[in-house]
């Protein structure tokens, strides 16, 4: 379902074509894309972490003491660490010998590349979502909180 997303990362040469195929679910026999759909898992993890951290900042904490643009970047850093850790953790566990199609050339640096792609995507999604005033308006204390000072 989210293969298109990780095709972008592959296009950006953040990881290899083989890693992309692995993400798309190439099975261990290399016969079809019927294996574990890592792209979907990674995208769901990415979405959950990104939206979760934003919701925590804007609607749960929603604090007047934590609503400056640099607080946004602090939350973005936390989000990046989580996105990286979750993506890398999932992929790292999947690339042990015999755990994936033997025709694919998959390395640890490829897993790091995917994790970095998730970090980048999470950051972009956060920037886009928090740039939109109506979403910020749902918050009480963060109506002017985004990645740059608005005033």
């Amino acid at each position, binding site marked *: 379902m989210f293969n298109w997303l990780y095709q972008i990362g592959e296009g950006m040469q953040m990881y290899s074509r083989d890693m992309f195929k692995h993400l798309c679910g190439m099975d261990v026999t290399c016969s079809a894309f019927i294996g574990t759909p890592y792209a979907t898992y990674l995208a769901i993890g990415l979405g959950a972490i990104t939206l979760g951290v934003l919701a925590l900042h804007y609607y749960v904490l929603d604090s007047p*003491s934590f609503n400056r643009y640099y607080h946004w970047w602090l939350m973005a850093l936390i989000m990046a660490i989580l996105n990286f850790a979750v993506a890398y953790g999932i992929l790292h566990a999947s690339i042990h010998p015999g755990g994936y199609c033997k025709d694919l050339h998959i390395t640890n640096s490829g897993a790091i590349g995917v994790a970095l792609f998730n970090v980048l995507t999470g950051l972009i999604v956060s920037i886009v979502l928090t740039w939109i005033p109506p979403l910020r308006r749902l918050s009480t204390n963060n109506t002017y909180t985004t990645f740059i000072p608005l005033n």
Partner: protein
Amino acid sequence: MKKLYIFAVGGTGSRVLKAFTMLIAAGIKAENGQTFQVVPIIIDPHSGNLDFQQTNRLLENYMAIATDIGVDNGFFGTAISTLRDLNPAASRLPSTFTYGLKKVLGAQFKEYIGYRGMNEANQGLAEVLFSGDTVDKRNKPINLLDIEMDIGFIGNPNIGSVVLNQFKDSQEFKEFASSFTDQDRVFVISSIFGGTGAAGFPIIVKNIRNAMMNSDIDGRGYLRRAKIGALTVLPYFNIAPDPKSPIQKSVFIAKTKAALSYYETNMHGSVDIMYYISDELNGKAYKNDPGNGGQKNDAHFVELAAALSIFDYMGIRDDQFSSENGQVLRPVYKEFGVKEKTADMRFVHLEDQTRDKIRTSLAQLVLFNKYLQKELRNTMDKQPFSIDAPKINAALTDQPFYNTHLTEFLEGFMRWLREMSDNKKAFSPFLPEAELNAIIPENPAKTPWYWFSKFKYAHINSLLNAHSKKGNYSSERQKLVHLFYHATKDTLRKFYKINS
């Protein structure tokens, strides 16, 4: 809107009017939802009196604020105006709250009554009627006839009653009469133990009730059946003994008895609702200064309690008044009491009704002032309530509205609280200089334990931000006052657990 004309006579009149102004600024209103446009008229020949000057300045600042932002913002929620402002096109009066007594500036009483032009018999009569000694501006002993009236009547109502009688022929009285309607009311504040107030109260009431005999004024019928309330302040403060001074604590009671006796005979049936208030005379002794400096007394709880009578009066329904041919059919007499008498009073010592009337509103204004002093500049351009249009930023604090009218008013308010707190009897329900969570000692602010944070300005900011989202404001000045009224009310409810 119905109007309430408040005649504040003498030094006590000014001080009670000052207390009333503080209370309406805090947002206190009459019961029963009755609203009035208040028209204060200060009557005091002693224009150098600091109480008089402070009250006048306070009213000017109040009016400037209320005129700018309107009266629907909680704080400053009662409209006030000068007599001139009721009809500025036709008025011949200056825009002031004070009644300018004629021929008293630098004049001796004997000049005022034309003593030198009298024949010998009349001079003799004047000497009998106005016998006795007093002091001049330099505290030098003089005869009563030589009294210099621009320092007041120095406890001589017999002088005051002559001089203040010019009120009925004044432009102020004419414009008061012409603007007075059947819906309007009159309230007279005076003390009974001095000179100006004791003399002024009967004169004002008499001239209103006898308006039919004054062909120079309009609205005579309305005035004759006017609803009149009056507050008479009986002795309530101590004064330092000074054998050379004509003001003596020992004569306060004698003068009070004499005046009460006069009221009983001459005022019964003239006033619809009469309020009496008093206190022990053994508190902190005020400086005895009848001279040019004038009596400058610290604010006293009795003045606050006295001012509450005006709210009580405003809250009385029209159908509870009844008069016929200028005679009140059912005069009512009221007094004030507290739950517990103590030298250092707090809210807990007040009757519940009194406490509920003033506690929240006064605390809101204290909190508003505290925030403006300590936190506003830290939040400008940072918190949403400050950034939302219209912006609350440095441009606002540079405006006269903020740096003159509001600042001066709040300084006066805090000084008034401080004076009441330092006085004996003291009224000290606030510690304005304490930490934010401790400014109301009876109700320290607390946060739920699971917040892991003690109460701080950020909690007020959050409430300000929440109210700012809901509001629609005509100007940054209106927004400032409106927002803080609601945010401070919520703050007191949520964190100080004060609901009324």
